């Protein structure tokens, strides 16, 4: 199993149940398939707040949406945010069959973001001991005369004596006979203490560290040395950058003015009211104060439609979030340009087409509006257009 960014594909799936947020997924009922080339296939079944993660041999069956990664690096990188998901999708290294939106909406909602497991430091006790003389601070050790012994058991461990005398410091292999103090502990505890991941105090009190000799001397030794810095840890610290997240929102009250006012009044009466340019005859929908081409006011209104002909159609598969609410529309949906009956040939009207009619929708098709039961003179009065059979 290949490792990238300190993690494997299996790590990601194995931690899924732990990262799952049942409360957020209580209304969900979906199976998602994952394929990562060279690593395997997984099926994740989410049903009413429960989750089942299984590795699959053979084909992914019964999955509403399947996600395919070209290699482990892509899968792990995009999961960790080290590789832009958009870039991976663009180049086809990451592919989604089914609902692409899941990646941006459902998954971030029901899972805690995966983070790579704390990388165990590759530093061993021997490495730390070897830096002792260079970390020594003669100014702090003036007049000190002592020998400190370390007996560190386990991998990377060993026995050393640190001799401090006349403002000088030396490290010798093995334990001297006349030690001021001897400390015995597992090597990994020593490393943890030096890196600051284990508290020295609790290591002493819990008995993991054994002291023979002058306890005060043991306590004093840290003063004589600069702190040990893990050379591997440096890089990851530098990556920790600071951002703050704020949503700014200012309420507004928009005037409609007379032109838009007429438009909304028309909607309330289930009518499409356009205003007409007195010069070029363009029927403006939605109405605005002037005809931009002729630069004259348009005060006369005419009723258009209600039926019309599609002049252009956009099927939207990727919906951007509503800038005000952050909500994302269900996809696919269609934005159609419709030349309403009685309109001049220069102005089409843009609106949604009924979802069920998407497969049959085409340029030239005839459509009719479907209105809300109760119209109030707002955007929501008009539900959609449907094919006029």
């Amino acid at each position, binding site marked *: 199993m290949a490792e990238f960014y300190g993690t494997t594909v299996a790590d990601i799936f194995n931690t899924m149940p732990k990262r799952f947020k049942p409360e957020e997924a209580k209304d969900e009922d979906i199976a998602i398939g994952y394929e990562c080339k060279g690593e395997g296939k997984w099926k994740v079944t989410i049903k009413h707040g429960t989750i089942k993660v299984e590795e699959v041999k053979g084909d992914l069956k019964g999955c509403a949406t399947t996600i395919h990664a070209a290699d482990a690096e892509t899968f792990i990188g995009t999961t960790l945010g080290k590789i832009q998901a958009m870039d991976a999708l663009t180049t*086809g290294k990451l*592919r989604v069959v089914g609902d692409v939106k899941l990646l941006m909406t459902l998954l971030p909602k029901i899972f805690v973001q995966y983070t790579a497991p704390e990388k165990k430091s590759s530093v061993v006790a021997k490495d730390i001991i070897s830096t002792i003389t260079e970390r020594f601070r003669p100014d702090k050790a003036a007049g000190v005369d002592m020998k400190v012994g370390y007996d560190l058991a386990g991998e990377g461990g060993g026995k050393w004596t640190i001799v401090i005398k006349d403002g000088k410091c030396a490290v010798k292999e093995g334990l001297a006979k006349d030690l001021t103090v001897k400390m015995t502990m597992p090597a990994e505890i020593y490393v943890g203490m030096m890196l600051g991941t284990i508290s020295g105090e609790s290591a002493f009190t819990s008995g993991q560290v054994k002291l023979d000799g002058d306890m005060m001397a043991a306590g004093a030794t840290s003063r004589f040395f600069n702190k040990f810095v893990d050379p591997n840890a440096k890089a990851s610290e530098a990556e920790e950058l600071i951002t703050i997240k704020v949503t700014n929102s200012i309420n507004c009250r928009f005037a409609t003015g007379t032109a838009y006012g007429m438009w909304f009044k028309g909607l309330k009466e289930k009518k499409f009211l356009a205003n007409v340019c007195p010069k070029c005859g363009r029927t403006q929908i*939605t109405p605005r104060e002037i005809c931009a081409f002729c630069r004259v006011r348009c005060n006369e209104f005419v009723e258009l439609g209600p039926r019309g002909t599609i002049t*252009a159609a956009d099927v939207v*598969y*990727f919906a951007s979030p509503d800038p005000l609410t952050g909500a994302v529309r269900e996809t696919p949906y269609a934005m159609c340009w419709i030349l309403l009956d009685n309109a001049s040939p220069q102005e*089409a009207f843009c609106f949604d087409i009924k979802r069920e009619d998407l497969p049959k929708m085409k340029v030239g098709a005839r459509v009719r509006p479907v209105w809300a039961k109760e119209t109030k003179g707002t955007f929501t009065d008009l539900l959609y257009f449907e094919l006029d059979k």
Partner: protein
Amino acid sequence: MKKQSAKPAKAHKKNRNVGIVGIGMTSLSSHKEDQNQPEMIHEAVRAALADAKMTLDDIDCIVHGNMELFEMQYQPDMWHVLGSGAYGKDEYRITTGGTVGATLVCAADNLVASGLYDTVLAIGFEKLQEGNTTGGITNMADPLWFRNIQTGALTGTTAAMMIDEFGAERAKKAAMKYRILMDKHAMLNERAHRRFGLEYDQAEDLMKTSPQLVGELRLIHMCSQSDGACAMIFTHEKKAKKVSKTPVWIRDHITVHREENMSNLYAFEKPEMTHHYAARKLFERNGIKDPVKYFDVFEMYDPSAWWGLDWSREFLQLKGDEHLRMLEDGEFDLDGKLPLNPSGGVIASNPIGATAMLRPAFAALQIRGDAGGCQIKKPVRHALASGFGGTLWTVLMMLEKDLDW
């Protein structure tokens, strides 16, 4: 009431010539959390000053622009004074939308040519990562109606129209070829943001499998979202000749806007496209009969492969399938008749407020011979650069190596 003269005004003659003498840009990437806004701007400003071998003492005036709702910073030039260098100087903040970077160049040209300022520094930037871009663009629409419908800058109608005109196979192939050509150019341009290393034999596969955004507009066709800043320094002829061995001259520019409402773009009768109108007027008044022959490079603002390809016909005043043939025959390649976007274009790098400034910046680097890996081999003397924004707004400008027009 007086009567406006019916006679055409006298030919517009520039009060004095203006040269580009400094170009600086930050790296362009999707993340810049290691810099705040003024710091990012300052990086571009320093780069431009270094390029011009100038200090801030040489600058009389700063021109600053972006789209403030993308970062939600009101009058950002106030805070940005910490990085823009405007302290104690004259400063203008002029914006137009996606076109803003190109508008800043036009503004700097006007300010220097007017004689009001000798040396002007223009800064375009965007930190898209600090806001929601598509949401920000949707915010552009009329709040009473169209904002409820629009999906940012995405539309598949150009693809649909091209498929209608040239057949699905040829149109889709051409869009992919355009896309991969841009990536090949980006691979040569060390400054570009997205460099995928695509090969032409991937076209068939990508055009089928790349996720659909809107209609046949797929993710692979679309431009990137980048953070970055670009700064340029402009000065008058006398000083430009003194301080620079290779000043690039701004010959002329035109801005063409249209109304917000897009109803008349998608009906049966369509008006002349703004891009076509802008190019026609600009070429007319500068006596350019055959733009493909005249220009040595075209840096076009191409938000997607479909738009880029379609608009090349409008800007270059081509007819029928001439633009497709140019692409298919390799005439837009680096060694073709008219190299198109040697920088990799907007598809490769798109820090919106800087994007339209990167077009003349990259074009000017080509004229100077400083374009690095994407330098066109034959001499570049005449360059065309475009900006795009708003509802099909356009800014088009001509840059020259020599003062000989």
